[in-house]
């Protein structure tokens, strides 16, 4: 870990005439938080765009109680985070007017910000000036008008009542006036064993003209529920932000806590986290490749892949006590060691599975009936991928290659060469290709980590930082970068937790991908992205 203050973005801001102040209560210093004036908000976003930075997230937070003004008013802040492939992450913060919170939209510069800004409107009542789409996002129609769940004065401990006056309101979907266009509503309860969400297709004959996702159905108040939890308890909730990505979410939360407390975990713990995270990546890619093939009626591949996934889950249960690896990453380290005997079993199985996947890959590649379905279906151009800042395999299939294991190079990845699969075609076939490549690379990384595993403790005792300290972490989960920001309050309890699952951005990629695709190919495309509904809705 390089503990050098990252002044690159502050210097660029100064060059552009934007004054910024380095906030000392935020950690780590290589991902600094800079306070800017509210007037400069949109200009700073424009500068970030010009500097070819990637928008990571935009969110809001009420100040902690320690920060209250003498009159008892709590300042309200807006935050945004950017990343640059060479100059790492930087956060910007600005203080809003508490009586009438208004902030300029940054969506004109980064379209992926739009849904996050809509969430800020829903959760805090912040008016985002100039937002291109001001429909409610997480706030469904039946919510009371005045419900602002992340404000401190909101009654968050009782189920929110429905407002009968608002029950009849329909969500204003994008529509077409043309008589040749028909609408297909799908969901929220879908046909398969899958999470809920609503898709509204505008179709011309068989082809999709536009697809709009309406999400928020599994909004569980995760951010609010985290407030007032200790880090040890909170990590269980963080690990269930998106259950298929539990290791990476728990890691992002834990690392943000560890940064805030300025106490890195022991090296052995980082290595074990790396092994768990790469196993999670392998298992999910394997399961998804099978499911993609199943959606094109290639049942053989599905059966084989689900078998491999089950083998992995069973070994996880035997070694770690949990099939999906939940609750293993904890603030300060990991909860379970990998003893020598089990290390060999883990290594052997990882290699066996990687070999089997390669064998199956050659069958997949030689099978014209599946190739015909995946090649050229659901293309996202490189230009669009860069524009949206697509993450993970969705980005890597379309010429956008952010990988936090390289950009942030947190342990244990700091000493490793990560092989990034660099796709360009952006279709389903390329997304599958990237996943095959990642399975092979994860197997290689697991072997390296297990062989070089350092001796020592697996966890430091957790000691919460003082009130007001915050930490930010960016972890490369299997779907892509997970960004987490945690601020501690009084008594060592979490005061505000914000997390951005890669799905928040990648859902937009799916909407672009399916334009012009026949409706029956939607499941194939949907599975090739496999965005998380839970991770998006929080």
């Amino acid at each position, binding site marked *: 870990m390089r503990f050098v203050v990252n002044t690159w973005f502050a210097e660029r801001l100064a060059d552009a005439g934007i004054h910024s102040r380095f906030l000392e209560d935020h950690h780590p210093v290589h991902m600094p938080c800079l306070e800017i004036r509210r007037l400069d908000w949109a200009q700073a976003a424009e500068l970030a765009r010009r500097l070819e930075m990637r928008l990571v997230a935009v969110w809001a937070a009420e100040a902690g109680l320690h920060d209250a003004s003498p009159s008892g008013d709590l300042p309200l802040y807006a935050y945004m985070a950017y990343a640059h492939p060479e100059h790492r992450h930087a956060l910007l913060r600005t203080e809003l007017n508490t009586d009438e919170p208004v902030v300029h939209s940054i969506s004109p510069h980064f379209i992926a910000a739009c849904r996050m800004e809509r969430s800020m409107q829903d959760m805090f009542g912040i008016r985002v000036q100039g937002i291109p789409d001001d429909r409610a996002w997480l706030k469904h129609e039946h919510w009371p008008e005045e419900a602002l769940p992340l404000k401190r004065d909101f009654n968050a401990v009782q*189920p929110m009542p429905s407002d009968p006056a608002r029950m009849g309101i329909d969500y204003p979907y994008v529509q077409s006036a043309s008589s040749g266009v028909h609408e297909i509503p799908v969901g929220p309860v879908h046909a398969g064993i899958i*999470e809920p969400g609503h898709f509204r297709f505008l179709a011309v004959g068989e082809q999709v003209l536009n697809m709009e996702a309406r999400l928020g159905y599994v909004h569980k108040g995760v951010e609010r529920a985290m407030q007032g939890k200790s880090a040890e308890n909170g990590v269980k909730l963080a690990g269930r*932000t998106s259950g298929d990505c*539990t290791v990476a979410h728990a890691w992002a939360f834990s690392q943000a806590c560890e940064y805030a407390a300025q106490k890195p975990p022991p090296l052995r713990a980082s290595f074990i986290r790396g092994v768990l995270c790469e196993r999670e990546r392998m298992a999910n890619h394997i399961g998804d490749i099978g499911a993609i093939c199943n959606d094109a009626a290639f049942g*053989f591949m599905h059966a084989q892949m689900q078998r491999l996934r089950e083998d992995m889950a069973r070994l996880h249960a035997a070694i770690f006590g949990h099939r999906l690896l939940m609750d293993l990453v904890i603030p300060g380290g990991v909860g379970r060691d990998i003893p020598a005997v089990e290390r060999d079993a883990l290594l052997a199985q990882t290699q066996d599975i990687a070999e089997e996947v390669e064998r199956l890959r050659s*069958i997949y590649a030689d099978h014209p009936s599946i190739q015909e379905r995946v090649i050229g279906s659901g293309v996202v151009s490189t230009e669009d991928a860069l524009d949206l800042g697509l993450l993970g395999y969705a980005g890597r299939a379309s010429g956008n290659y952010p990988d936090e294991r390289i950009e942030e190079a947190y342990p244990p990845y700091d000493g490793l060469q990560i092989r990034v699969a660099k796709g360009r075609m952006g279709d389903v076939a390329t997304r599958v290709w990237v996943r095959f490549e990642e399975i092979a690379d994860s197997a290689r990384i697991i072997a390296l980590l297990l062989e070089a595993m350092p001796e020592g403790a697996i966890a430091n005792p957790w000691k919460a930082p003082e009130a007001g300290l915050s930490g930010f972490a960016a972890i490369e989960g299997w779907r892509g970068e997970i960004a987490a920001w945690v601020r501690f309050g009084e008594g060592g309890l979490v005061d505000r937790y914000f997390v951005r699952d890669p799905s928040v951005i990648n859902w937009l990629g799916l909407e672009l991908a399916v334009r012009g695709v026949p409706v029956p190919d939607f499941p194939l495309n949907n599975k090739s992205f496999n965005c998380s509904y839970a991770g998006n809705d929080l």
Partner: protein
Amino acid sequence: MLTILRSIFRTGCKTETLAESTAIESGAQLLEAAIRKHFNSSLAIRQVDAGSCNGCELEIHAVNNCYYDLERFGCHFVASPRHADMLLVTGPVTRNMETALRMTYDAMPAPKLVVAVGDCAASCGVFGRDNYAIAGAVSDIIPVNITVHGCPPTPGDIIQGILQAVEG
């Protein structure tokens, strides 16, 4: 084609008896007999995620893999509640899914069996009852026959829950 056949041959039959993969002794026969008796050899299941973190969905998927192969006992997952004998519900019921869950339940024909899968479905789990976004556990919204605990429950537990609901 030859490579596929060779691969199938090399893999062999992985399906286990239920006693092997779960703790249920002679569970298979019981389940099959009950389904034969009550559902004319075919139990149609509709799954609804009412707010889960998607961990339970992974394990419900797993009951269909070749090791457990739930379908051999006559259970199959259907695409519409109109076709379903049983509803498998996961997650704490969010405020935003409450109406959809009720409508799904209402759309089912009798006997309307409901199995609540997972700790969240049973008691809201880590998300908690004291949460503005959560309407309650599944049994607070619709009648539940059997509750399966676990976070998430294992495929074996889920199969056992289905069996209990069918027998009960």
